[in-house]
């Protein structure tokens, strides 16, 4: 196992603020505190939300950093707070993160320096990642989904994804109101895999949270099954960062 960040482990990186902001804003929809696993190849974070409904698996290669000097270790970080601090930094500003002798994290951005203790990560379990094989994979821009999301907020608390051969229909229904968003193959999305129709429903609240993490204009890969979890994959920072979100479904019960 990695040393738990005790003693003095080397952790010193410099990175553009935009990259960090991406990382933290992808993680915060799932949880406010994370365990960061770092080694010479880069960062990895796996986290599940407190209710075990959604999960994130994020990798960031060392190539995304300006300067990367890290021995293998695990760090407990409050990403919510970090994200807050980063708001004051410009996109291309360089941020330095460093672990000091007392195991405190030092974050410096231009003439501002922050020091804070690590979060105790010993209680964080390593979430098991379900191995899913999903019959449908589509590539699309997140903007296509955003407008449907916005419209359904006032209608219901869930979304149903229904993918047939040539279109993906997203609906949200309650009583007499409904929202239908129709996306066509070839125009709004590109089909990567189609092994038969797929239909699943998800909590709107969770899905909107994940879409906050995805951002408004990003190419994503959507994997859909039949009453099965949803998988959203995308890249950031020129492909040096990779993200996988999983979301548990709401299934029709007998």
């Amino acid at each position: 196992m990695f040393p738990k960040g005790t003693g003095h482990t080397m952790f010193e990186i410099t990175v553009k603020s935009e990259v960090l902001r991406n990382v933290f804003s992808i993680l915060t929809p799932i949880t406010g505190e994370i365990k960061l696993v770092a080694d010479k190849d880069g960062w990895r974070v796996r986290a599940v939300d407190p209710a075990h409904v959604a999960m994130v698996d994020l990798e960031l290669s060392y190539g995304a950093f300006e300067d990367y000097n890290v021995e293998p270790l695990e760090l407990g970080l409050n990403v919510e707070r970090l994200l807050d601090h980063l708001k004051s930094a410009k996109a291309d500003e360089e941020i330095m993160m460093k672990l000091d002798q007392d195991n405190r994290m030092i974050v410096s951005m231009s003439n501002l320096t922050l020091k804070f203790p690590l979060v105790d990560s010993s209680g964080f379990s390593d979430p098991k990642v379900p191995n899913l094989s999903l019959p449908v994979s589509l590539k699309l821009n997140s903007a296509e989904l955003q407008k449907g999301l916005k419209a359904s907020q006032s209608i219901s608390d869930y979304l149903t994804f229904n993918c047939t051969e040539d279109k993906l229909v997203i609906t949200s229904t309650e009583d007499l109101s409904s929202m239908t968003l129709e996306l066509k193959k070839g125009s709004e999305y590109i089909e990567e895999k189609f092994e038969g129709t797929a239909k699943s429903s998800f909590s709107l609240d969770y899905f909107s949270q994940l879409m906050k993490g995805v951002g408004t204009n990003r190419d994503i890969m959507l994997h859909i099954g039949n009453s099965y979890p949803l998988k959203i994959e995308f890249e950031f920072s020129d492909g040096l960062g990779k993200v996988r979100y999983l979301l548990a479904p709401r299934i029709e019960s007998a």
Partner: protein
Amino acid sequence: MAYPYCSECKGTKAMCGQDHCPLLADVRGRASLPKLSGRSLQGPSPPSVFVGRFGYPRITIGPLASPAPLPMAERLEDPSFLNALGLEEVYSIRSSLVRGRSRLDVRTAKADPLGGSEPLMEVEDRLGIGKRRILSSIQEMSMSSRSMDAEMISRKDLKVMAPIPSLDMIMMPMGPSIDMLTLKVIDNPRIPRPVDRAVSDTDMIANEGVLELYREGIREEHISRLFSVGLLGGGRRRRLVPTRWSITAVDDTLSKQLKERALGLTPLDCYHLYSCSSFGNHFLIALYPPPFRFEMAEQWQKGSLWGEGDVIHDWEGPRGRTGYADAITGAYYAARLSTVDHLLSIGRNAGATVIRWITDEYWAPLGVWVIREALRKAFLTPPRLFNDRASLIQAIDASCGIRNWRRSTRFLGPLEDMTLDRYI
């Protein structure tokens, strides 16, 4: 005359356009009230205090005391005792407690161990020595776990006071109120050690203090009493909090914090159904496999306090809720606390649906402790167990007093929430 929306208003929103709820006025008329005379009132207090919400931040505050000797004064604020009585008895025994009233600014409760803060001085300067004494007497009473005798002296003859008892869905009933010029506490308080610790810790935020006290076995009534008289929380942030708000605040913060722990427990892998009745309040409580969710549906039926109303519903998904449970209000938080408590005691994480219907036996509101205690009682009996969701739903169909309850459930409807754990 009850309107369909009375159950949603519950005497607080003036939805019928009348300032004073006519239904509550009718119930008030049925109280047997204590006879008062002279300018002073001396007698035992459970202890009990009341902080009003009208005129906020300049509210009225005062203790509740009985003008006649009461052998079990101590138990008049103890739900487990009140729960064993009939509704009539609870109502009349609580109506015998006379409430003193003195006007204070909520910021008066600021405690600054270092002294010398500007705004605090300002508030205190305007505060006469008499008022300061009243507040410290009330705070002293609030800390006590045993009943204390108090003496209230009014400016006017008490006989001419309007004998109106206070009624509310959230608080316990109270007798008539009198304007209070001075307040003297006669006995010494008995202060439980955890209370002393929490009150003197002016660095601990209120949420932590509340949880700490609860874990030490201090009852909610005592905690919300301390909270309402501004004895919990960081010193400079202490405030007087209207009793009505403080009860819900304590239920809310406790259940929120305890829920975080329940999330990490073993998932419930079957379906539980509990039931219970109390003062004409009937309950069914269903527990089912995670994710954690909570919902409550309630219906006031023919002959109940608010007459026949629609089914009202409040809920929260696994991510919790941020807004106030507008429809059901305080009862929602009381039910959530008892439910989460139960999850911790059986060591299981689960979702829950609480269904409450209220019949004609419940003609006077007694406060949300009725819900808290009823659920506790329900959880003491072994549940009916089911292996599948369909059988649970059938069992609810068979015993539920709300026809069409299925229309107002989010979690026992056609869609069932899953967790990712089920795909590993």
